[in-house]
């Protein structure tokens, strides 16, 4: 598992969010990929799409089920990771690194601070 750091935040829907200027990179957590099992299909949002925090904007499918991936914050889709569409297994192998989903240009970068830090997310996982 890649090292987590203080610039990474988490959601209760098991997305991770990494801040770099006004841009955040978004993916699903290692816990999420473990729960889902081997992914066979990923659908990403279209570039330039305006997404609202909590909005379903990507889909992951395993052999047995489809699951939504939610936008953790409000903003515009600035970049998407096409390599995971071609090879969804990258998400299983490196969920919090090479297996990122999309990048968002945030409407309000301050909203990043409202998400759970690693300690809070780890505590949240304990309650599940």
């Amino acid at each position, binding site marked *: 598992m890649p090292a987590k750091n203080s610039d990474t935040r988490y959601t209760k829907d098991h997305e991770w969010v990494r801040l770099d200027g006004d841009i955040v990179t978004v993916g699903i957590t290692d816990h999420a990929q473990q729960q889902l*099992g081997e992914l066979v*299909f990923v659908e990403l949002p279209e570039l330039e799409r305006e997404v609202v925090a909590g909005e379903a904007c990507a889909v992951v499918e395993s*052999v*047995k089920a489809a699951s939504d991936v939610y936008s953790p914050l409000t903003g515009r889709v600035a970049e998407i990771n096409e390599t995971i569409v071609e090879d969804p297994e990258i998400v299983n192998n490196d969920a919090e690194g090479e297996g990122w989903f999309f990048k968002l240009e945030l409407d309000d970068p301050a909203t990043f601070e409202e998400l759970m830090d690693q300690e809070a997310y780890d505590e949240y996982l304990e309650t599940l």
Partner: protein
Amino acid sequence: MPETILTTPLDTWHREHGARMVPFAGYSMPVQYDFAGAMAERCKGGVMAEHLYCREKAALFDVSHMGQAMLHGAGAAGLLEHLVCGDISGLRPGRQRYTLLTTESGGILDDLMVANLGEEGLFLVVNASRKAVDFAHIGTVTPVTVLTDRALLALQGPAAAGIMARLAPAAAALPFMGVARCDIAGVPGLVSRSGYTGEDGFEMSVPGEMAVTLANRLLEQPDLIPAGLGARDSLRLEAGLCLYGNDIGETTSPIEAGLTWAISKRRKMSWDFLGGPAIRAHLDNGPPRRRVGIRPDGRAPAREHTVILTPDGQELIGEITSGGFGPTLNGPMAMGYVRNDFSDDGSKLSLMVRGKPLPATVVPLPFVPHRYVR
């Protein structure tokens, strides 16, 4: 009203082997495993890995949630024939047959296996979710002895015959759909050469208290892992086999379900079973819709309840009843009902997946060829 969840005799055993347990048909059942220790050297676990292992080597499924019963008495076969479309009177001792309990209106009350155990009577295996309905229904024509203290294990895959040859040579000699009483590694069992994966394999009914012993003895053999309901479902769908409640039910006739072959020849002469006249009319007039295999274009699976439209998206012509991703097929696959004029192989369809049209084609079943011994 709080309902207690039932467990199979292998409940603790599953958890010890890293199972993720889920409720299914009132039972707590393993959907998949996260293997550790020696078993992890064979397979890491997970639906895809368990599925592929079963096709390559062999997998052991706990299907003890299914209903098992005996019908005693010389007249049982003839009496059961009032309710099923198969030839039961003509079923020879030591043979098993897939058949259907039908409804008066020509629907399917359940699909089941009936085995002729000779002097002992008939042995039935029915779906877990239909136990109460089936046994009450059959009880109206002949007494049913429900076997509540037995486990049912399915050993499936190309390595199954070799494993069985070492633990139960008599069982390994069974032909496809043959059935016999024999000891498996010293455990008294009732074994049939059948399954629900499209692979060669065996189903073993054993006393519940012996299930853990048998499972452990089996797993001492190489090339075998336990597998969960997740892999069981993707395996049966690749094999084009129906799941009761999804692909068949009280509102589907055997004809439109593509199960006309399950109506035995003799029964087609007289149609003297419940719903026979209605099913005969369906056969004579042609059903308005048919169950077909469907391959969506691309990689996105189309799941059950997905709406099926004409390729131009203008007309509703059907619905998917089972859909997912085939690990061996390495692509999405589905079964569903489509209007008769779209049921020929090669017919083009449009599936509505997350509000967008997904092109698809009607294909022959199974998706992955059966490998039964003949």
